[in-house]
């Protein structure tokens, strides 16, 4: 009973304090730091809205099953278990309405919550750290304008010992590099803008950069592709065989804007990213991103394609002709903007075949955007083909039309069946 009383007292006091803060902000608490513009300023709020889109905050902080924008509650997969996204609406009790701007900035750029505890890197603060104080302030100003939603969220649902946040101190010490983005004076402004977006708010590396066992970026392999959520986020460097080497700057822009270009259509987590974020970005920013990505050197490993006479290749070719060629065409060229060109698509020969296995076994719908509303889908073949047959047809595709990749075995396929079915 005394405990309940004390809880009640705390809640009431907190409530009173919160109310007091809302009506009479304590001096210094919510005042713009350094000469930042007032957070009532339309220009600032609009810039914040745009940056919130670029940073794709909605992807994690809105539960897709609810209409409560930014109210959190969505579980995020990490190598250590699930972290549930926080409520970032201005609700005083369950959101971030009672946070100071400085606390908000610390959360976004240093990975600390309002009590100074360390956040898990499911929140991509190692990337957001590159953002400028002005941009974070703009996001804060925008988030203050959205409707508050009362929605308590218990973020930390990790198993012992990962549930001990203090462990993050070690992680931060090892891997977290604070500091805003430093433009490269030798590069043009557009390149630097692209670098800022990719490395900072866009946090492309969160999915596309390989990670070590503790979930930190392998910096020397930046943007060279990584398995995430049962998909392989492909290599997005200028690597010819596995990256964007064949794509022009215009191809990159079209893909990010419309979700489809002459090579591929986006599905899986990238479909969500395009729908929520890049399709809503300005053409100038998309071009800057494209210019930067096209300037990232790949690390092509020369692999020799399997011989067409290899028995697995022969079987794969026959399956391809029977089941795949009606849409993808005998030469793999597909149909522009409708059926991926798997002859020229580098994601076909990506380092890990995860995405290919997934779409063949379980099928996938591509993203619908305003410019490309069709959203064609790849049907599932997992019910129809055995593990060995799927291994053969994927091996064939990954070793045809100039692609080269190691052969897959039936057990490689078998492993993906349950994984893909439980993923999003």
């Amino acid at each position: 009973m005394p405990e309940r009383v004390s809880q009640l007292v705390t809640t009431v006091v907190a409530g009173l304090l919160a109310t007091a803060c809302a009506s009479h902000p304590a001096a210094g608490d919510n005042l713009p730091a350094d000469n930042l513009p007032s957070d009532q300023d339309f220009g600032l709020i609009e810039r914040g809205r745009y940056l919130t889109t670029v940073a794709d905050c909605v992807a994690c902080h809105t539960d897709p099953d609810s209409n409560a924008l930014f109210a959190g509650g969505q579980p995020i997969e990490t190598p250590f278990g699930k972290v549930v996204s926080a409520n970032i609406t201005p609700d005083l009790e369950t959101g971030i309405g009672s946070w100071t701007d400085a606390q908000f900035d610390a959360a976004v750029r240093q990975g600390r919550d309002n009590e100074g505890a360390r956040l898990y890197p499911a929140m991509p603060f190692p990337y957001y750290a590159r953002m400028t104080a002005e941009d974070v302030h703009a996001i804060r100003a925008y988030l203050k304008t959205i409707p508050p939603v009362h929605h308590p969220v218990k973020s930390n649902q990790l198993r012992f010992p990962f549930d001990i946040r203090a462990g993050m101190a070690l992680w931060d010490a090892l891997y977290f590099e604070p500091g805003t983005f430093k433009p490269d004076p030798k590069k043009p402004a557009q390149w630097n803008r692209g670098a800022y977006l990719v490395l900072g708010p866009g946090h492309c590396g969160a999915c596309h950069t390989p990670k070590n066992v503790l979930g930190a970026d392998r910096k020397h392999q930046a943007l060279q592709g990584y398995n995430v959520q049962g998909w392989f986020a492909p290599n997005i460097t200028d690597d010819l065989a596995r990256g964007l080497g064949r794509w022009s700057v215009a191809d990159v822009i079209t893909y990010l804007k419309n979700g489809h270009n002459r090579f591929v259509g986006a599905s899986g987590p990238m479909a969500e990213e395009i729908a929520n974020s890049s399709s809503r970005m300005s053409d100038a920013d998309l071009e800057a991103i494209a210019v930067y990505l096209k300037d990232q050197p790949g690390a092509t490993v020369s692999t020799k394609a399997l011989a067409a006479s290899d028995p697995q290749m022969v079987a794969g070719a026959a399956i391809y002709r029977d089941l795949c060629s009606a849409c993808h065409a005998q030469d793999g060229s597909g149909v522009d903007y409708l059926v991926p060109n798997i002859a020229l698509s580098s994601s076909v020969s990506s380092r890990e075949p995860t995405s290919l296995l997934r779409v063949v076994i379980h099928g996938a719908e591509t993203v619908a955007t305003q410019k490309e509303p069709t959203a064609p889908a790849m049907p599932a073949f997992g019910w129809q083909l055995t593990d060995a047959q799927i291994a053969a047809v994927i091996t064939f595709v990954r070793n045809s039309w100039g692609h080269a990749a190691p052969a897959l075995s039936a057990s490689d396929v078998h492993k993906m069946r349950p994984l893909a079915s439980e993923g999003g």
Partner: protein
Amino acid sequence: MARKLPPRDVAIVGLGWTGSILANELTDAGLNVVAIERGPWRDTATEYAPNYAQDELRYRIRHELFLRPSQTTFTFRNRQSDTALPIRTWGAFMPPNGVGGGGLHWNAETWRFLPSDFVLRSHLTQRYGARFLPSDMTIQDWGVTYADLEPHYDRFEYLCGTCGTAGNLQGQIQEGGNPFEGPRSRPYPNPAQQQPFGPMLFAKAARELGYKPFPQPSGNMSQAYRNPLGVRLGPCTYCGFCEWFACANYSKASPQTTVLPVLMPKGNFQLRDNSEVTRINLDPSGKRATGVTFVDTSGMEWEQPAELVILAAYTIFNLQLLLLSRVGRPYDPQSNQGVIGRNFTHQTISDCISFFDPTKFVFNPFINSGAIGMCVDEFNGDNFDHGPHGFVGGGYMGQVQTNGRPIETTPVPPETPRWGAEWKRAVRDNYQSTLKPGTGVHGSMYSYRDVYVDLDPTYRDRLGRPLARITMDFHENELKQNRFLTDKFAEIFYTAGAQRVVKEYRKGPYDITKYQTTHLCGGAIMGSDPKTSALNRYLQSWDVPNLFVMGATAFPQNAGYNPTGTVGALAYWSAAAIRSLYLKNPGPLVHA
């Protein structure tokens, strides 16, 4: 007691071709639209994926995509003196079900009607005199002309990406197209499909006989296409699984491949699938619709209030709803009074099976699409002098074989045993060297006083509602027309080198058990006189001005073409009238 839902601006009954077009047009106009569809949601990759869509047993024989008669059906009789019986398995036509409606499993034969078809009674009377027409023939002018509809035909064709060769561009006759067609404002959006050997051979023979063959206009894509709404279709793979099937390759125009990707995400559109509308609700005056009532799969009854109600279901179900809701006066064949149920028509089709020398001809009939083939139009509508022949009407004819599917494509000479080793041998010998179009002779069916729809006095559906009753038989005019056309058709195959042509004339009585086409037309027809038509020229009910009725239900009689092109054009025509006239001043658009 029905639960009442929040009101909407528009309630659309059925989400097939016309429902999708109207929903898209009216949401574009800013209205809040709900579509209520009896059947399920249907989607390419999950409902008819390419790795199982081509399943003749599942889709053709077992009717996967169609309405189940246990959900609702109709009764049929040939003559008023017969007792109608309920249909328990589909035969002469296939009632669609589910999102996309018949637009999902059609062949995609996308025709325009002839200019004279729209002014049929005045045209024929002027040319041949009123006494040339049978006294019980009730054909009418449509109240709308080809010129009125041309821009709307154009919109539908560009929506669908229709493939074809224009025969008449702004009055200039074009080589390779249909010289009889009405003038088009611009060419088809896509070139005609590549033709297989059979149609090319047919076209060569037709030219030798002095005809002008042309490719059938098709909604099966000859090349990749992006329509004006930004939706994309892929090139057809000529798999031969169109009619009765949904296209797995995004290659056949359907609501799914042309409109729904744009319609479904709209904030002012809502779809309720698996929900069957049971009646149109009228206010006490009977002159105004207040919305519709529907039941869901739990049997729960809901009322959907709406300012505007659009019937966009299949012909027979539009009619059933009108009759059950007491909109307009039911047609009485005795007194020839009343408008709901009159001028009900179907199609008059027949075929020829042409056997060629197996040592010389290999047709590969499995290389096909739903609307592929070469046609001639010399004997359609009033393209020829009917004076010497003693009938009116006609149809296109063509080598439009749509498939070589294994279960049904077993062409054998008539004297072959029906089963056993000899039958198998005959199938083997003839499969590759026989031409058998789907609907080779595609004749008109004109309307008659004793062909109509009313409510059945005996049989009811699972909800206790009387079933619609069809009274239909062929009349001598149509049978004569068919004999004439079928003979002309056979002559072309003989000229092409057939050793033997088996003519399958259409004979009476009308047989409800054998598939003909799904082109049921009429029953709530458009026209200029409220005494003989249910709808005005904008498809607006004369009796209930905030009710519009889409589809072939409005055809006063059926022409010698597949109806969908005209159904699509009328939908756009009506939508344009609602947007530009009705919304500004809701009320009757025509005062008669």
